[in-house]
């Protein structure tokens, strides 16, 4: 299949790639670019493990073709950590022992980050709603919800 050249602002850097038109953005990021934080758990948009930021909105990258990202801004969990520092959501989920197997964590953290950018003081219901598209089988969600609600206590802390 003939490849198409595309340019993406990927984690803040302009990058040019050649991808087949039928390659999903999730597969492209993981298998061709080597960004492994996002995971694939269903390949049909059900589980949310492959959630990334696309022009600042959280999307499931298994439902987008890589060529559709041409000219857009894509940020994965790797790109959220400025100079390798953890974000408040990461610090809070770490301290709360919120995750267990950790497979859903990257997608879940993206979804939570989007929420607090839009709504810095979310209620519990709003947190649950915001992460309802991200499946977790280990935790029963409540430790994750508690950690997200507590993120402000980790702002500006090392």
């Amino acid at each position, binding site marked *: 299949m003939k490849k198409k050249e595309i340019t993406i602002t990927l984690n803040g850097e302009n990058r040019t790639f050649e991808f087949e038109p039928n390659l999903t953005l999730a597969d492209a990021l*993981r298998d061709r670019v*080597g960004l*492994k*934080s*996002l*995971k*694939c*758990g*269903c*390949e*049909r948009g*059900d*589980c949310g*493990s492959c959630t990334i930021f696309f022009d600042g909105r959280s999307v499931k990258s298994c439902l987008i073709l890589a060529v559709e990202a041409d000219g857009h801004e894509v940020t*994965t*969990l*790797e790109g959220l*950590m400025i100079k390798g520092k*953890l974000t408040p959501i*990461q610090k809070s*989920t*770490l*301290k709360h*022992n919120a*995750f*267990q*197997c*950790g*497979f*859903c*964590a*990257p997608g879940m*953290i993206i979804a939570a980050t989007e929420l607090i950018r839009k709504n810095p003081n979310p209620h519990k219901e709003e*947190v*649950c*709603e915001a*992460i*309802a*598209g*991200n*499946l*977790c*089988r*280990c*935790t*029963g*969600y*409540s*430790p*994750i*919800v508690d950690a997200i609600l507590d993120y402000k206590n980790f702002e500006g802390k090392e």
Partner: protein
Amino acid sequence: MNDKNNKELKYVGKNVVRKDGKEKVTGAAIYIDDIDFGPNTLYAAIVESPHAYAKINSIDATEAEKIPGVVKVVMGKQFPYRFGLYMHDRYIFAQDRVRFVGEQVAAVIARDPRIAKRAAKLVKVDYTVLKPILDVKEALGVGSENNAEAGIPKELVHPELKDYQHVPWFFPKDNTNIAHFRKIRNGDLEAGFKDADFVFEDNYVVPRYAHCAIEIHGAVGKLDHSGRLTVWTSSQSPHTQRHLFTQALAPLGFTHNDIRVISPYVGGGFGGKAGVSMEILAAALATTVPGHPVKVLWSREQEFYNTYQRQGVHAKIKVGVKKDGTITALEQLLYWDAGAYVEYGANVVNAAGLSATGPYHIPNVKIDSVCVYTNLPPGGPYRGFGYSEFLFGLESHMDEIAKKLGMDAVEFRLKNAVREGDKLAYGAKMNPNGLIEAISKVREEIKWDEIDKADPSRPHIAKGKGFALFWKAPAMPPNSSSSCFLKFNEDASVNLLISAQEIGQGYHTVMAQIAAEILQIPPEKIRSELPDTDRNPYEWQTVASHITWSCGNAVKNAAIDAREQIFDVVERALGKKREALYLEDECVKSTEEVAWSVPLKNFIIDGFMMKDGTWRGGPIIGRGTFMPEFASALSDPETGVGGKPNVHYTVGAAAVTIEVDRETGKIKIPKAVLAVDCGKALNPDLVRGQITGGLLQGIATVLYEDMRFNELGKLMNANFTDYKIPTALDVPEEIVPIIIETAQPDGPFGARGVGEHTMIPVAPMIGNAVKNALCVRVKSMPITAEKIVMALQEKNKEENKEKI
């Protein structure tokens, strides 16, 4: 000096932050599909049976082989070998017949996964379709209703059953579909029923379920040109996998020393990644393309139909009881739909049979737990290992009995609850436990004795409470063991080499806490390594909730071994009195010399220099193993009595308040309480994590999930759109985890396992709450809104009839 550590625990019992936490919140944690194997990697796609039962006549791969990029088509006949954990009934590839929809028949290996998939569709298999056996009762045959042994089946799923090797505690029946028949007989059943004032009998049905770990199964095999076979797997059982790979591939000349299994982080297991299922394909296929890594990655659909499934069960329960609530006798017939291959699943049936009295003291018992072959996907281990399944019926039934006797459901349970020292149905004695404490704490927290008043503004909402007890023992061979090497680095930091798996439970953290406590080194300086069978010592499997207890003991023993070596060298090199030495703040100290101490890092690798310039000591390496030498699986096959098959039980109680909409049947859960006796909470935060997680996984089985097969045996809901697992919106409004600590005498710091147990009471607890709220009893799982509304309509019909 040993006692000093046990009196004031510095690291054990504390909410230490997960050792794997930072890797996981940063996306740095590596799972099987994150490993890069380079451009030489090949990808396999599987040719699958579209039929539940058929004879394979021929396979034609001509068209597939023509596709550019296809490297090889591997026919099932190339691997005519059977294997299995407890019974050798599973084939690497189907041979003469296929036994479930989705079973592997052949494989296409290609340079690109998409080419492999496309080519696999072009492989033509000619079948003679047979009538599948999809129902347990049909599989048992005519005349099996109350006596499975008497059934005469029309068709056999495994005509060669009598030739299969199995563990000595399995009892298959020739010329039937019974792969294992676990009998428990204790006391005098007839006398027990005669002694009763009432006898209550009922039937309960539990369907099949899927684990739904968010990470899908994957495996990569590579046979290098020197003949070394390495298999990377997402596995709860790396050493057991190596053993089974070696057994299965022994005809090709492989020994244990030739095979290496490496397991990175596992993205959720719940039993689904125990033993060997699809991983055998990566191991076998790798032998056909030396020098190439071969990757087999399941799709979510395959994850549903070709790994393990939780087995379905039909339970017939008969209980004799006196007017005062004393249970005199129990008969429980459990007929399990174990699927096409039962190499692992038959032990679920065995475990359930041993413990199907539930956490009750019952003097006269008959249990038949029967493992039945069907043409559905292989059954196997799933969190709870049979206990969730039989307790749905038993705990529902106990509630019904209390109601019929006019007794409070909690009082009835208290009256019959098992106590320490009670004789169990198979003859052994019950271990120390906090069941009574758990019952009373849950009763208090859920305000059991207060009735939830109906809300006049919402007349369609009915409120109710439900209660359930649970117990579970690790189901494991009596000689299951764990081991640990503990090595120091120059700065007195520690690496633990252990081979259990971090599947999310927090095992690395807790093992670090155990070693930290003995060595008085902070857990932050102790790192555990993920399993690699070449490097890390033996572990049976990360299953059965036995790791905290078993591997915890191995780690503790290794740390004590290291500590004793430290004291040896200090005594030998410095002439200190050994009995006075103790460890504190990463130093050796002495009770006799308050001002003296020596930091571990000063000598832990290089030793001490003597006056003459020679050195004493050398790298300290601790070694620890653990095997429960008191356990035995040998018993009388006709009664199950004689051995000590279970090392101990973890027990507890749970309760829930629900609000049900009478019009829609929808259930809301305002509050759930679960108390579990973990012996000692080594890390309370992680125990609470098991409680919230297990509760929701249990809620999933009772409210949302079940596997739906069509009349040809094909799974109809093999995806998350149709098999709905809970989201964050489905969590109870309030969850109260309660930790009970009745020390396990042989556990590390008194700990016993807690992983599976939190899921076990949930289904009957909610069923009991539905009964309490609406006066209807749903006897089959899941308890969907639809079933509730139908049960209410049925009840109204009955009541109207009575009025007329």
